[in-house]
């Protein structure tokens, strides 16, 4: 008995150490980036164009480019993802097609990001002749974040109790009216969480935009959705590996802006989910 208690203590210690091995490095990564990046952040850095071959100046075009891409991706992915989730949760029966759709979603989520890049290049840039443009990049990113939005929205829709639907239907509402006025409003927080997580993912990905939109160095703002654009993650890649003698401060500063942007979105999503769980009426 005594012996098994000791084994338990040792085992739990190891489990705790394993957890520390994840948590501590992550904490360190965030701290290092904040500590070394913060001195670079000032108004000029955030609002100026890159100068002297990206060795000076700011990152404004990259920030704007990322905003455009993320907005474009969500405009494309949110309606499709939401409707797909409605189909899975409200309309589809438990049959082969349903199984196939779920499998497709799992696979979309697992396709390597660089393969999305290839696909975007082949379909949007070359086949549909959109060229390397914000449009091509947004569509590629949109397909990539589709599974995130579908999965989160479906869970949110399915967690609305059936009794809500039954009451609405028994009052003579049609199926769509029930979905539109009863199910959807109650699923909004979950859908919002999924959407924001999708935004965060789209903002941080580099590989899908490499050949579909990203401009190496374009010290101006994009003119239209058929224009190329700089983007934060690609800019960070470029100044850390492709351009020699970039001041460390600028690299860390860019990393910090990207990290803050992505983590902020994720935190917002987590907070919404947390608040919603506490408030849940059923």
């Amino acid at each position: 008995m005594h012996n098994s208690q000791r084994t338990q203590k040792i085992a739990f210690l190891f489990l705790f150490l394993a957890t520390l091995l994840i948590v501590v490095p992550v904490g360190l990564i965030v701290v290092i980036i904040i500590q070394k990046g913060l001195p670079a952040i000032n108004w000029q850095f955030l609002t100026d164009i890159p100068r002297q071959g990206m060795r000076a100046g700011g990152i404004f075009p990259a920030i704007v480019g990322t905003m455009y891409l993320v907005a474009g991706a969500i405009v494309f992915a949110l309606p499709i993802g939401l409707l797909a989730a409605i189909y899975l949760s409200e309309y589809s029966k438990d049959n082969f097609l349903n199984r196939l759709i779920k499998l497709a979603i799992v696979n979309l989520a697992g396709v390597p990001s660089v393969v999305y890049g290839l696909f975007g290049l082949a379909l949007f840039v070359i086949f549909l002749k959109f060229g390397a443009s914000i449009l091509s990049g947004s569509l590629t990113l949109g397909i990539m974040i589709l599974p995130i939005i579908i999965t989160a929205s479906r869970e949110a829709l399915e967690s609305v109790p059936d009794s809500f639907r039954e009451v609405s239907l028994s009052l003579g509402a049609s199926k769509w009216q029930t979905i539109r006025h009863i199910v959807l409003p109650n699923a909004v927080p979950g859908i919002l969480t999924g959407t924001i997580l999708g935004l965060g993912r789209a903002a941080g990905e580099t590989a899908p935009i490499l050949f579909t939109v990203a401009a190496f160095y374009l010290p101006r703002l994009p003119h239209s959705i058929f224009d190329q654009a700089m983007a934060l993650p690609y800019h960070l890649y470029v100044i850390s590996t492709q351009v020699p003698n970039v001041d460390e401060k600028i690299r860390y500063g860019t990393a910090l802006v990207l990290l803050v942007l992505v983590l902020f979105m994720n935190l917002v999503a987590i907070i919404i989910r947390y608040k919603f769980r506490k408030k849940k009426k059923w």
Partner: protein
Amino acid sequence: MLVRKLKELIIEKIIFLCGVLSIIFVGLIFLFLLKEGLALFKFISPGGFLFGKSWYPISEPAQLGVLPLILGSLIVTLGAAVISIPIGVGCAVYIAEVAPAKTKEVLKTGIELLAAIPSVVLGFIGMVTLVPWVKNIFHLPTGLTALSGSIMLAFMAMPTIVSIAEDALYSVPKSYKEGALALGATRWQSIYRVMLPAASSGILAAVMLGLGRVIGETMAVMMITGNAAVIPQSILVPVRTLTATIAAEMGEAVVGSEHYFALFAVGIVLFVISFAINVTADLFLHKKR
């Protein structure tokens, strides 16, 4: 009334269309990879492509054997597996079974945030911290090695492993554990003998999906593994993975050239690997339910 019925019908059709769109997209991805990738085999046999030992895409004539790239991906993935599986599963058990409720929430949030860090940021931080360490510790000419890639990628696999394995442990019926405890087992014995075996298929799926993420990872691996497309002799040399090759070379490849087709063929290899991993993991996840 009729108008309403019609409207409803149209909406239902649109919803159905969006529902099957996921299947269409997967089909389109595969189709376009095939369309551009299969053209390669006019120049080179599939065997020569998959088992060719040298990748010199811009020499004359181009040598397009992906074996060095496959082995590069494999060695980085194996290294990441060795690091991330014990740590990830251990952390999942700690969160699911050992940690107090409040700590649990904090840890889960932390793991979720780790998953959110963009890979290019991890690649950057790996370049400026990990790479010099590896260089100094092992007295190497360069720290841009498979090992550095493995360590960094382990951190990308761990969030997936932790969260899915934790779910698997959580979904084991409470009565299993209670039964074990009632028979006089310690908490650890109940975890080790009852909970882990009961959750094993979910944990296996977690590991597969985590490693799937590693194989598909692009930016971090391109930034810190040194990008030498040669068959790796150890884990302490620069390697190049399948993903990094596409990302690094597609910018220079001329559309419609042998090189261009070859990079799409590499994409097919990646797609097939990720497809196999995801389908198998999905089977494991749904096995017990």
